[in-house]
């Protein structure tokens, strides 16, 4: 007689919870890529198809570098999490439109190899890799990084009619410096007045600058998408932008304290792309709400200091990099109190 076969089920036994939310690292990274698309399209519109090529070169370099190093490290490839693509796009967004093709290659390679993989890959990097790549390029080829601006197709580099060689922040910085030079003061005051009229160009992105940073409108569309998905939260961008607004109003004006133009400072330079897409980088920003408020505040203060008295007209990338280094400290030492205490 045949023995009766009983089906013996092998049951999975693990500790609760037995269900998980849908979001994964991969989903978050691809959402960030999607959120950067409006700004990328805008950069092609304003600066021509060259902006797209630079971005693609940067992405491809980032992906190849990541893949190669993962192979060399003999670790399981985590390429599919999409973070190399994000780094590639953000690095390109931080380049002037006229840089030679090898600059995104050098920058992306540095960002992934030294900025990220040298520390152990995604999750272990202390600083934002894309910004580190930019800092590397700025230190190594400062002329390219500060003069290779392309004028937007329907506008001027400065956003105003008079000056055509510099970006709005550089124009402002020079004008404020010139205020103390007797024969240039009159001209400088005029320039500053004219910059006040360029809000529209700044908002749309019709000015010179790094290819992905100019259009506040398109960046905000992407940012709203990420906020809606819950992949970034409002704390860092809000405290960062508010700090810049307050401090530029107090210290950034041509006529002494309390004469600055906060709106101009918010709309120009890399503040919007920095505040929404780079300061909010999960790995390198604090995880507690208190930490996030302080992180944004610190970024804002450094940005204003660099813009006002530093050697460069723009300080977003350095301020975020500096604050990145405070993240472990902010997370560990700003202890949150448990519910009820």
């Amino acid at each position, binding site marked *: 007689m045949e023995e009766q076969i009983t089906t013996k089920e092998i049951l999975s036994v693990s500790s*609760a919870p037995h269900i998980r939310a849908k979001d994964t690292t991969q989903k978050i990274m691809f959402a960030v890529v999607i959120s950067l698309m409006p700004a990328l399209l805008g950069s092609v519109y304003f600066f021509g198809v060259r902006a797209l090529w630079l971005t693609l070169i940067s992405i491809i370099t980032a992906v190849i570098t990541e893949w190669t190093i993962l192979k060399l490290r003999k670790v399981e490839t985590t390429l599919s999490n999409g973070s190399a693509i994000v780094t590639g796009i953000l690095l390109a967004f931080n380049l002037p439109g006229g840089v030679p093709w090898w600059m995104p290659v050098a920058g992306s390679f540095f960002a992934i190899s030294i900025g990220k993989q040298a520390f152990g890959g995604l999750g272990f990097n202390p600083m934002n890799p894309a910004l580190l790549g930019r800092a590397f390029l700025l230190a190594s080829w400062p002329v390219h990084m500060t003069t290779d601006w392309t004028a937007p197709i329907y506008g001027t580099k400065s956003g105003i009619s008079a000056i055509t060689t510099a970006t709005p922040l550089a124009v402002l910085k020079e004008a404020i410096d010139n205020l103390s030079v007797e024969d240039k003061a009159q001209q400088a005051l005029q320039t500053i007045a004219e910059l006040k009229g360029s809000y529209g160009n700044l908002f749309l992105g019709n000015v010179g600058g790094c290819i992905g940073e100019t259009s506040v409108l398109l960046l905000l569309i992407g940012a709203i998408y990420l906020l809606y998905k819950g992949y970034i939260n409002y704390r860092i961008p809000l405290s960062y932008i508010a700090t810049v607004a307050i401090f530029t109003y107090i210290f950034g004006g041509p006529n002494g304290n309390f004469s600055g133009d906060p709106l101009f400072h918010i709309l120009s330079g890399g503040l919007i792309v920095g505040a929404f897409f780079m300061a909010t980088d999960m790995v390198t920003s604090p995880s*507690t709400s208190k930490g996030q408020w302080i992180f944004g505040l610190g970024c804002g203060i450094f940005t204003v200091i660099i813009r006002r008295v530093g050697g460069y007209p723009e300080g977003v990338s350095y301020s975020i990099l500096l604050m990145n280094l405070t993240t472990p400290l902010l997370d560990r030492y700003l202890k949150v109190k448990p519910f009820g205490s």
Partner: protein
Amino acid sequence: MFDILKRNFKGGVHPKENKKYTESKPIEEIPLPEEVIIPLQQHIGKPSKIIVNKGDKVNAGDPVSEAGGFVSVPCHASISGTVKAIQPHIHPLGGEVNSVIIESDGEDKYSEKIEFNPDYMNLPAEEMKNMIYEAGIAGMGGATFPTHVKLSPPPEKKIDTAILNGSECEPYLTSDHRLMLEKTEEIIEGFRIIMKILGVNRGIVGIENNKPDAIKKMEDVSSKFPEIGVVSLDVKYPQGAEKQLIYALTRRKVPPGKLPMEVGCLVQNVGTAKAVYDAVAFKRPLIDRVVTVAGDITHQKNLNVRIGTPLKNLTDYCGGFVNSPKKIIIGGPMMGIAQHSLNAPVIKGTSGIIILRSEQIGFGKTTPCLNCGKCVEICPMNLTPNIIASLVENGRIEDAGEYNALDCIECGCCSYICPARINLVQNIKFAKFKIMQEAKK
């Protein structure tokens, strides 16, 4: 920030509810099992002490064990028959526990002590409490803390608010929902008994607003009693966790490491209230309970089951599995316990059996922490699960304690939300266990 305006608490998550499959299924009585397994420990505290011998005849409702201390409750035979064995048996909460195995005589005779006392509400509070103790009632929401102990706060702690927990925030489970619809009067009477024992004249029933029919029914029945109010709560997990529920209903915050009585509150589950009514009005011990059977099974149902019935009887009664099951959970999917055998019995805290398919049990590989802060944002206890878990992984248990690991309520929200699929709550539980172990030394 705005939760002060809502019936809500800080943090929490919104897992897919999956309640629609069973919420409209009336409670069914499952056929008498041929044998029941009564574990001597079904509650938090000391195990109960055996008082029967092999071969003894018992009726349903007869005690088979007595409490092993103050924080302990007796257990009862849930069917009539013969004590077949007293031996260790698989327990749904893990491991093996000494259990009384009773073979049914098929007659389902009840203990003679069980009879209705129409004047039950006028019994003295102490006697009521004793009846609850003798009925072996332990919290039926899942925590299984002995109810008579909870109803005996030290005299210096003045309780002014009794809370009835009908939130049932775990996905899939609808046993409390059905009980509130079908045994409304009994639940409200049980709640009134609890209020009388505590001497409080303010009772709040909290129900998540995904159960509008239960809210209405409970409101209708309780409207006779001005001291009882029914409050509709936002749907959010873990709304039914004690501290979160108290905050949502009263805005009082239970301090870390303290019990609800610290803020004058006491929480009981609706199932417990029904058992309290049975105990005081009928002298009927806790020998059965409602269990939701849901997930990948032929017929998803709500069943009234004798304590000690093997899980297999329930799944068979529901028509068996659709596919070969990959995970079987006792309780809800957020806090429930995965079973390795269907021979484990239903116990006093078993609110449901959830069967998951193979595609529901894989979550992908654990990847490094992104420091995204989601776990911090949703932690209802305002902890930093990311930091605690990474300390635990590095063996720094003491430091994990510094980050208040002991305040974790083990709700599982952090592991649920983590995009890197890190086992956060599992690590925190480990830290708690280690810290407690160290403290005992």
